[in-house]
């Protein structure tokens, strides 16, 4: 499991690498761009502040690698929020248990109505999202949700509370193909400051979640950090390390990464300026990860603005959400309005996003999975 390896990393290697950021030369950046098998030293060079002067070259290389590996295609998916119940206290999230919002958990008919709405929009890939409260969002309920939604979607991925291996096996057998779980932050001290109550407080349990999902046989695992909780260098280096570990250990699993940035929400936390990942830095991260991990999926959500997404997806992104709602029951609308988990920036419809992708010379891919491929029990 990763937690012990990470302990070594955060104690010894990470401080060393953080220090490396202070002495990057132009020469190192140029040679990083030429290295056919980039190392973590190259990665640091490519994500350094100095590399901003080389951003055009970095972007060109990233774009070329992406087109070679994935073609000029973008896979589209949609989140479907099915519960806002949560027993965690997190400073940055609207679903935090302290927040006085209307809580809602979809019944199966309500879930199917939302699902059918997305199906009619053309989606084949759905991400089921829920808060973290295992008293309401039980294993049995989740299995029922997966089973039901799988009838209309070939590809179902879950973003819910971290689970044990046994639960993940049950979900995989029910037809769930992947797990998305962000560490939020790999900075242990900041993690404690932002996760004040609930099971999520246990840093080590969360960081081993991708291991458990892989062991259980999930085919796609997405990891990432919520940028804004600590200095971006800490989380960036840690994602690099975590991803390298996972890809080597679980060679059959397909991995994706994402770099969500904090947005306005119902909560008390506003990131200090030095923690903020600005647009330039985000572009740098996308391109540097692409150059160092040519085969890894990179996801860009509707947290980012339409203008920004239209430009950035061409540099290294493989999957995008579109026409999203982060509200439980937010698509079909006949459920009393409640609080979205966070505010979105790209408010275009799925069709508008797809059209924009086409206009930019890319093929929006709605279906890239066959649900009946593996046996569902």
């Amino acid at each position, binding site marked *: 499991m990763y937690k012990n390896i990470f302990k070594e990393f955060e104690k010894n290697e990470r401080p060393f690498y953080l220090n490396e950021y202070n002495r990057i030369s132009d020469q190192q950046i140029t040679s990083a761009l030429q290295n056919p098998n980039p190392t973590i030293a190259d990665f640091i060079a490519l994500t350094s502040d100095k590399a901003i002067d080389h951003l055009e070259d970095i972007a060109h290389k990233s774009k070329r690698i992406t087109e070679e590996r994935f*073609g000029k295609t973008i896979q589209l998916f949609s989140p479907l929020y099915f519960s806002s119940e949560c027993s965690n206290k997190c400073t940055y999230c609207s679903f935090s248990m302290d927040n006085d919002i209307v809580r809602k958990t979809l019944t199966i008919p309500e879930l199917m109505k939302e699902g059918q709405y997305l199906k009619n929009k053309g989606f084949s890939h759905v991400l089921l999202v829920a808060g973290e409260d295992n008293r309401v969002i039980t294993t049995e309920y989740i299995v029922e949700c997966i089973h039901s939604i799988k009838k209309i979607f070939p590809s179902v991925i879950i973003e819910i509370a971290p689970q044990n291996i046994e639960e993940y096996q049950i979900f995989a057998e029910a037809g769930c193909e992947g797990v998305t779980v962000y560490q939020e932050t790999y900075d242990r001290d900041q993690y404690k400051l932002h996760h004040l109550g609930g099971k999520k407080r246990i840093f080590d349990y969360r960081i081993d979640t991708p291991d458990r999902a892989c062991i259980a046989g999930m085919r796609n695992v997405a990891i990432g950090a919520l940028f804004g909780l600590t200095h971006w260098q800490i989380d960036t280096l840690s994602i690099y390390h975590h991803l390298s570990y996972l890809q080597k250990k679980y060679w059959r699993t397909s991995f994706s990464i994402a770099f969500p940035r904090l947005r306005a929400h119902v909560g008390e936390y506003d990131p200090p300026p030095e923690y903020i990942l600005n647009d330039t830095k985000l572009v740098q991260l996308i391109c540097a990860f692409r150059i160092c991990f040519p085969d890894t999926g990179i996801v860009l959500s509707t947290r980012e603005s339409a203008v920004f997404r239209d430009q950035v997806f061409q540099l290294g992104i493989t999957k995008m959400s579109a026409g999203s709602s982060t509200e439980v029951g937010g698509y079909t609308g006949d459920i009393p309005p409640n609080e979205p988990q966070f505010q979105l920036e790209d408010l275009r419809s799925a069709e508008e996003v797809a059209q924009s992708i086409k206009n930019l010379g890319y093929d929006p891919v709605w*279906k890239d999975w066959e649900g009946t491929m593996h046996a569902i029990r």
Partner: protein
Amino acid sequence: MNNDALLINQIEYSSRLILGTGKYPSNEIMAESIKVSKTSMVTVALRRVDTNTSHENIIQYIDTNTVSLLPNTSGAVNAEEAIRLAKLGRSAGLGDLIKLEITPDPRSLLPDGIETFKACEVLVKEGFTVMPYINADPILARNLEDAGASTVMPLGSPIGTNRGLETKESIRLIIENASIPVIVDAGIGAPSHAAEAMEMGADAVMVNTAIASAKDPIKMSVAFQMAVESGRMAYLSGLGKISTDAIASSPLTGFLGQVNSNV
């Protein structure tokens, strides 16, 4: 009629260039590339086929009167999944041809020989025309032929790399020993690679990334069509042997029969 047609399981195909349908910037460009390449066979990932969608379906863009569909099992990680996908394609009316691709490592996308062999045995019994994608492994190629595969499709280099025929010597052995068509699949990054494969005696080549990711995919299809035809023509014309040693002008054994001997 074409007297040099590619023959797969007793069916004639006029072209020796097989195209993919992935990675194109649009379905329209894909359709035009297929048309100008004069191909008679294109492969389609079964996992991408969606028969009940409001969106465009990839197959709508292929003129199935002139081009045969070669459904493939890409995405499958073991024999069981590949078999399931193949049957799904057949029941959806996509025919008996199947390009068997089993790739358990999502990063390298290299084929699993053991699972491919298992699936081939089953699918042959089920009456499919099985075209397995394999590493350039001459023994596996022979085993698959014995198991009833209709072609073998060894890779030139890992898929999507455009690195050309890195496995050339193994491919040469496969071609030498095979009685079924050998189609070089994956890694062909330039028309010159395709020509090289055809000159060696490959029966056909399969190209996707090099065309779909080209700046002008349509023009690149034409370039590949010409390369495949010229490589084939060169092969049929009998290429001169390449020799690394100079041919000695004074034969070393010329004395035999000239001097008196005790024979």
